[in-house]
């Protein structure tokens, strides 16, 4: 692969942003970060990423969801792969393999949900499988 895959990482917690940026960059991904949904929207317009990792609860309890739903309704971004992140796993159905990774159903605005703290290797494996799959 000549072109590096671009990951857009969105989370209001700077420690999370820094930690995962370091891990992802060391695996050869180009990482852009945003702290809010608004920032993320701007970055999306500037350069379309290959994968977006999106925290759910930021400045509001559902900011990540809201953004993800809006993107799904926008024909330009409908196919953008989104991985949701949450520190707060309440009522998510267990359908996927593994302990902290969940494959979501159709009514969700994303296909994957990771529970924080995220296991680095697992996250990378998921990202790679997404990119290869396209």
């Amino acid at each position, binding site marked *: 692969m000549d072109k590096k895959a671009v990951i857009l990482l969105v989370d209001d*917690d700077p420690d999370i942003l820094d930690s995962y940026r370091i891990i992802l960059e060391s695996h050869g991904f180009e990482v852009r970060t945003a702290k809010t949904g608004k920032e993320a929207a701007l970055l999306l317009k500037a350069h379309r990423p290959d994968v977006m990792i999106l925290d759910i609860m930021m400045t509001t309890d559902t900011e990540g969801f809201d953004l993800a739903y809006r993107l799904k309704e926008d024909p330009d971004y409908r196919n953008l792969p989104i991985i949701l992140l949450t520190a*707060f796993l309440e009522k998510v159905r267990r359908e996927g393999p593994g302990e902290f990774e969940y494959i979501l159903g159709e009514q969700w605005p994303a296909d994957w949900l990771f529970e*924080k*703290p995220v296991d680095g290797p697992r996250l990378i494996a998921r990202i790679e499988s997404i990119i290869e799959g396209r």
Partner: protein
Amino acid sequence: MVRASHLKSASSAAREQIVGCTAPLRARWWIVPLLGLFSYPGLRETGNGFPSFWLALPAGCIFLYNGLFLLWFRRSGERLIEDADCRKRFIFFQAVFDTAALSALCLLTGGTASPFIIVFAVPIVWFTTALNARMAFTLLALIVGALIGIAFIEKTGWVLPQGLNGGRSAFQIFTAIALPVAAFVAIVFFGTFIKGIAHREIDACDRRLESEERVNQRLQSLLSSLQAIGSARKLEEVLHTVTSEFARVMQVKGVSVKLLSDDGAGLHYAAAFGLPDNFTDEKIVEVVKSPLNKRILDGEPFVTGQVTEGELFQFGEALSSAYIRSVLFLPLHLKSRVIGILGAYAEEANRFNQEDVDFFGLASRMVAIALENARAYGAIKKLNDERIRFMLRVTHNLRAPLAAMLSILEVTRGGYLGPLNSSQAEYLRRLDRRARTMLAMVNELMTLSKRRSHEGIDLDGATDPVALARRVRRTFQDEAAGKNILFNLSLAENLAPIRGSLEVIEQLLENLISNALKYTPAGGKVTVNLKPGAGMAVIEVSDTGIGIPPAEKSKLFTEFFRASNAKSVEEIGTGLGLAIVKEIVDGLGGRILVESEEKMGSVFVIYLPLARAGPEPDAAAG
């Protein structure tokens, strides 16, 4: 045609009366043989007895009219079943004919000296008991008249048999009938008098019975209202049930509940059943401006059978359009406070008597208790909801920094920031363990607090053991294989659904199995059995792990408790898993037993009730 089936449908009193008017029809057939019997010895002895022809004449007439009556009865006797007056008239006419026949018989058998005079007593007693006073006295007059007539005819000389009396004097004739007449008059007077007394007694008894039945009915209704009210939890439900049930029980048009505000200054309509729609329009009645309401709140019931415009105004102007004439208001007492006013409204004037006031008073006490209960329940629920929301926020706010910590640790320990020496690596490993333990604790505390508030236990759900087994197997198969532990799950055939939702029972099993896997060394075995037993579902989780020291078994289900041998096997442990298990088992109404031997293994046996067909009572009570 009158049939036996007709008689069955009549009331027992009617039936008795019918028998009373038809029995004589049958009895009269016996007259002829009796007369014959009577005359025969006379004939034999004196050779002079009553001339048989003259006996035969009245006998024949009796036969005739009896036959006619019988015919009429066969044709139109149905009328007798419903119509009491018809029955009386039937008896009356029979008695008239009997009187005539008997009078003729007396004339033909010696006039005032006739032995048959005494026979008049028979119809007299019959119609005295069967007919009302007016008819009885009419017939009495008829009979007395007949007797007097007989006396006169005798005086003129024409009685049979001639020669038997040999011309008695007027005085003799008079005395001959005076006694019977006096006796007959006495019978009728006395009879109707006693009847009158008996009827009045019966009527009084009936009225008492009626009033007791009413009280009984009201108590029954009160009981069913109590049950309806007792099963409603929310304040609005209780209010609605109270007002509608009491309107039904009291059989009034409307019932209202006014509640006093906390400062005691205002009354607002909390509920109104059967009254105009705009009645409970957010109106607050200021107690100070309404002396009537104030008096009621002070403890004085207000009852009126003719409510005036002025009074209606104090209770709500809209009432006048509802044609309310009678109202009854009672204070709602709770311990020493008055919390409101219960009101009943009726369209009839003078509807409420003392009995109603007393009954309503009973009811109002009940209502006050029900209302307080609903309020308390609502307050508790609100507190509970607030607590849960608080716990959720706390958990989230604890998780976020923990997640950040662990992410930072992952970066650092992963060497992404540069290589670590062995001491750095070891200390960071310890840091990581403690942080993960804290995270697990936060999760489990959240679960425990939800269970404790009874919010989580859903007793209406039912768990299919097959689905449960499938999910559990899928969850743990890989983990067990990864640790080289033999994992077996067996499910008995045709196991009935277990009471409780799938999520809850799954969590129960997962906590137990994950414990078993955690504390069983590689090469060991963890077995799960789902089977029926003692009318319940039995879940058995056994392992060949480190076991539980006997001294610590009693503390096993305490929060944060970790057995002494557990820590050496696995550093991370919250000590909450079994506490959660116990909460779930208790919440579902089951039992849990533990058998264990150190270094050999443990068996946890859980008994859970099976799901029932009907709806469950409210879980919050449990």
